[in-house]
């Protein structure tokens, strides 16, 4: 699984970084920085939680 940000929708709310700190950092304006988007099995539940929490519906978990 990979995590993707739809940049046309992301509003920089930064909630994803709180729920998935292993993968998502924030830049100085609160926008997510994801160095390695691949999500291991152990992190999938957390990633789903982050996807569900994004107020702008900008996060996606995609196969591959």
């Amino acid at each position, binding site marked *: 699984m990979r995590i993707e940000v*739809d940049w*046309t*929708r992301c*509003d*920089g*709310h*930064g*909630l994803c*970084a*709180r*729920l998935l700190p292993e993968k998502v950092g924030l830049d100085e*304006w*609160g926008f997510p920085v994801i160095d390695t988007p691949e999500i291991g099995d152990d992190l999938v539940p957390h990633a789903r939680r982050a*996807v*569900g*929490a994004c*107020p702008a*519906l900008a996060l996606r978990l995609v196969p591959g």
Partner: protein
Amino acid sequence: MTLWYLARAAGLIAFLAATGSVVLGALASTGHRADDRSRDRRVLRQLAHRSAAVVTVAMLGLHVVLVVTDSFVDLSVPGALVPFTAGYRGFALGLGTLAAYSLAAVAVSGAARGRLAASARSARHWRALHASAYVVWLLSLGHGILAGTDTGRWWTWVLYAGCAAAVAGALVARLVVADRHESTSPLAAARRQLTTGGVR
């Protein structure tokens, strides 16, 4: 008679939980400060919003089953299912039936948020659908006041007035925040340009 007490209690708890869920849902989109504590509080409000919604649905289910099975008021299954056909306080119960159906739609939309709001376009429709929760809340308020056999006692007025003030306050807070965000965020402005060609 015990069933009747339980039915009323379940109805009131459902209304209180619905109020909590609506208030927390509205407030979940407030608090745009960019520090970790306000982000965490936002996540918590969101969680509490979803939990209160689950309690609402469960209590409403219980309320409906108990009201139909109880023999104190004579309410048939079709009378409960088809709005405004109940013999007992038909209009008031009709409001309740409508509220239950629209709550079902809102709850399903909430549960399937990720799937229903996959594109920017469907996200807008999703928001409109989910915002009908405010209508659900109004219907259930009307239902509670008109059908509730406790209406008229002082504590029901305190309860309804308190809940109405909470929902109104949360809605205003949400609209104020959304407005400020739209007008100050350069991103929101750019996106408006892109998605609507500058027309709002």
